[in-house]
């Protein structure tokens, strides 16, 4: 009797953690999905998330307001994405190389700035973090309540963005234009729509979402910034988009698989099962490779993904 109660509690806590951990991945992956649908591979996602996490933390610390931190993180991601877009869309620099440069910039600049800003204190100050906001009535439901409806506001936002992005991409004229930019940019050009403008908008949106994802890590849950705290989540988000076959709901499913692994890992460490923690921590990366080995179909990939469009 008591044992089954304990098991149920553990299951609920793993499930709730899965939803919470999914937040930054989901935000970044949805942003990347829109960018890739417009034909641009944003390989700089990791750097944008990391910089968002740092600027979010710094602004929240300076202003005393968590929401200022979140807004600043989103703007940071968007600004970095605008630079990225200028390089790859206007100047047509190799997307992989530019993305890498953005990642290295995020890693270097955030570490440097952190040391420069908090050199006196020796240790980075802890800031308050977002509390859970239970939704009235719904959070009282058994099992489902604590899992789905007792989360942070950014988590609700991330999950609501799934249908929103789906609606944008597949039910609006603008979504059609975005998808067309990725599949057949020439057709857009002939119609007199600027392919570059559409791609800029999509990439900047992707950066904004990545910045918000980063903010969730620092301001949303850790209450501090640690160098390289994204730890590959930007790359996982890119993999999630591929594994999710460029479709919003499948992207959500793929996100949940990865965040479940992470939640499980935390739980196993928490109750002290004797598995070396390194094996648990490397799991998401191993699973990512396996996922790509299994999901080889690129049938859904935008036809012109990664290829810059020019008229000649």
């Amino acid at each position, binding site marked *: 009797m008591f044992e089954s109660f304990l098991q149920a509690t553990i299951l609920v806590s793993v499930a709730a953690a899965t939803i919470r951990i999914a937040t930054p991945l989901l935000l970044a992956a949805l942003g990347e999905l829109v960018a890739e649908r417009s034909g641009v591979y944003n390989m700089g996602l990791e750097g944008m998330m990391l910089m968002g996490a740092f600027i979010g933390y710094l602004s929240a610390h300076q202003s005393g307001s968590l929401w200022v931190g979140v807004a600043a993180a989103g703007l940071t991601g968007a600004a970095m994405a605008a630079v990225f877009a200028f390089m790859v869309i206007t100047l047509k620099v190799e997307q992989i190389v530019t993305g890498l440069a953005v990642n290295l910039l995020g890693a270097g600049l955030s570490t440097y700035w952190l040391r420069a800003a908090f050199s006196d204190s020796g240790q980075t100050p802890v800031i308050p973090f977002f509390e859970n906001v239970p939704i009235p009535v719904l959070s009282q439901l058994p099992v489902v309540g604590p899992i789905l409806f007792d989360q942070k506001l950014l988590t609700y936002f991330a999950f609501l963005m799934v249908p929103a992005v789906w609606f944008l991409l597949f039910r609006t004229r603008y979504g059609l234009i975005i998808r067309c930019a990725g599949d057949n940019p020439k057709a857009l050009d002939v119609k007199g729509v600027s392919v570059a403008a559409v791609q800029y908008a999509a990439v900047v949106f992707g950066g904004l979402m990545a910045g918000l994802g980063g903010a969730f890590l620092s301001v949303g849950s850790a209450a501090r910034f640690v160098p390289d705290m994204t730890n590959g989540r930007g*790359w996982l988000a890119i993999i999630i988009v591929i594994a999710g076959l460029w479709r919003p709901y499948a992207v959500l499913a793929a996100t949940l698989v990865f965040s479940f692994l992470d939640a499980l890992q935390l739980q196993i460490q928490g109750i002290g099962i004797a598995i070396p923690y390194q094996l648990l921590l490397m799991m998401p990366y191993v699973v990512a490779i396996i996922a790509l080995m299994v999901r080889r179909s690129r049938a859904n990939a935008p036809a012109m993904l990664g290829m810059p469009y020019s008229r000649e």
Partner: protein
Amino acid sequence: MTDFSIAEWRIERRREARPAARFIGLGAALAGAIIVCGMLFLAAGAEPLKAFASLAKGSFGSLRATGETLVKATPLIFTGLAACVAFRARIWNIGAEGQVFAGAMFAYWAQHNLGEFPALVQIPVVVMGGIAGGGLYAALAGLLKTRFSVDEVISTVMLNYIIVYVLSLLLLRGPWSEAGGFFEQTARVDRDATLPMLIAGTRLHMGFLLALAAAVLVHLILTRTPLGYEIRAAGSNLRALDVQGTNTRRLIIVVMLLSGALAGLAGVTEVYGVHYRLKAGAVAGYGYSGIIVAILGQLHPVGVVAAAILFGALLNGATLMQIETGVPSALIYAIQAILLLFFLAGWAMCNFRLRRTGRV
């Protein structure tokens, strides 16, 4: 009708950049990068000129400092060459970081597990071990690409994360951890296996000469061998090479083996030439910097060596800069990325011109 003549400016793409435009573009990129760095110095509360001066003094101010700069440049030459070989073929091996780990780990394993070696053979064993470890780990990503069509950018990045945990598993209360040691590292390696020093008063070791030799070798491979021809041809058009009858799958594996082997050697020089222990701190960070080195070096071995020495100087001078001006040495990684961004933009802009299309 109003009577103005409106002059319109148009930006056009050129087929081939003129040398003068290239020069101006590069100069502008360098100036831009220096200005941004100056602003970062100011942000840290230091005088930019003073900071640049102590950066220079720390990197080339004395024989010892110069030697240390070349020590720091050594692994970057290897990882830069690794990226150079792969990128020339347009195979995006981002995995030098992990391949440096693999090279160091395999060398360590070979030295300790393949039996007792006489003193003279110890160095060749660890060098071969580094080549094998780096090469095989890169070839794994190559296989994933050719057999399972997993994009090499993503697989190499994942493998970079994975191997850090594998090393930690072996070091932290694992089979390789130092007996009674507190840190995540191995015991000191056998003296016979360490790379000999070159110049008294510096820490410059044989690895630097190996790196220069590797640069010459890569240059010869690229320019004088059938493999080099295939690499360059793959860089311009892989599909055409396929049609022509080259086994491009095999080529991808071979390029990854070569690229990874070069990166693996960086692991050997760091463990057996500098730190004398295997630990994550000894081998981390060179892979990603190597990619920047390769691109700044225009994917040419000579350029790679030059860029690696510049980056070695930055890394080395940063320590003195931090002591003298209080600017955190982490700045160097930001500077590297800023340099790369400005140079990429500079090169790209060389390919554009502003043309006036007058309209009456």
